[in-house]
């Protein structure tokens, strides 16, 4: 029987699909009985999805055009 502490340590292996089936069954069995660990797993999935939506600071338009021109020049020099 897995403890809640163990479930939180195994959650990434579970999400990565890197768990042997016996352990996976034990993990799911624990989830079926423990609403706190279900919440934890749900929040961990949300965290991962939020991270996938973090935007990078956009490049200012004037720098963008200047950089694009320099990239063209790099190609020409090379060719």
């Amino acid at each position: 029987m897995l403890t809640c502490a163990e479930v939180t340590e195994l959650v990434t292996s579970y999400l990565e699909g890197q768990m042997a089936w016996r352990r996976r069954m034990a993990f799911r069995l624990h989830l079926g009985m423990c609403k706190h660990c279900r919440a934890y797993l749900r929040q961990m999935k949300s965290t991962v999805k939020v991270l996938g939506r973090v935007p990078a600071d956009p490049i200012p338009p004037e720098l963008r055009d200047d950089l694009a021109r320099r990239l063209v020049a790099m190609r020409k020099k090379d060719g």
Partner: protein
Amino acid sequence: MNGSERVRADDGALVARLIAGEARAFGELVDRFHARMVRLAMGFVADRGAAEEVVQDTWLVVMTGLEGFEGRSSLGTWIFRILANRARTRAVRERRTVPFSALGDGAEDGDSGLGARFDGVGHWSTPPRAWSEEDPERVCLRREAMEVLGRAMDALPANQRLVVMLRDVEGLESDEVCNILEVSETNQRVLLHRARTKLRTALEEHLG
């Protein structure tokens, strides 16, 4: 994971337009990658100026090597691999920045930060707090939550930050991240786990 950098059908088309010298394609390339390259470079080097230089070096390698892009990975993964190599080369040359392999295996930072939340037999004594918002799209609209997340990312050890950035922020596959950062699958998973654990806790403190 968002899968944003799984092989994209239009990567090959964009590269072909670049090779053909189509001016607009260069603008599209910059729009798609430059900001993300700077963000990733900041994970390798100490300051923004150094990161910008790594990105400039990377652009030069990308521009001179376009013909070598074979589409076996996504264009983003290909560019990020070049960037990681440039950052490492710079670190060796200047000894100003620390190569990833010297950042430790993460074992020195083994505390998930959750230990205090369990009782003596490993059951929750302080269970996860319910979040006021769990829907990722709506969490993203909360500026404060995103600022909290950004600060928590900044506070991560460099190796954890690089792994979580490539895996979860950029959406690369684990084998690609292992390859780019030159870490084992197991080590990558440990670093990812520690980073995600702390980032969930940071969001819980704001949303819970």
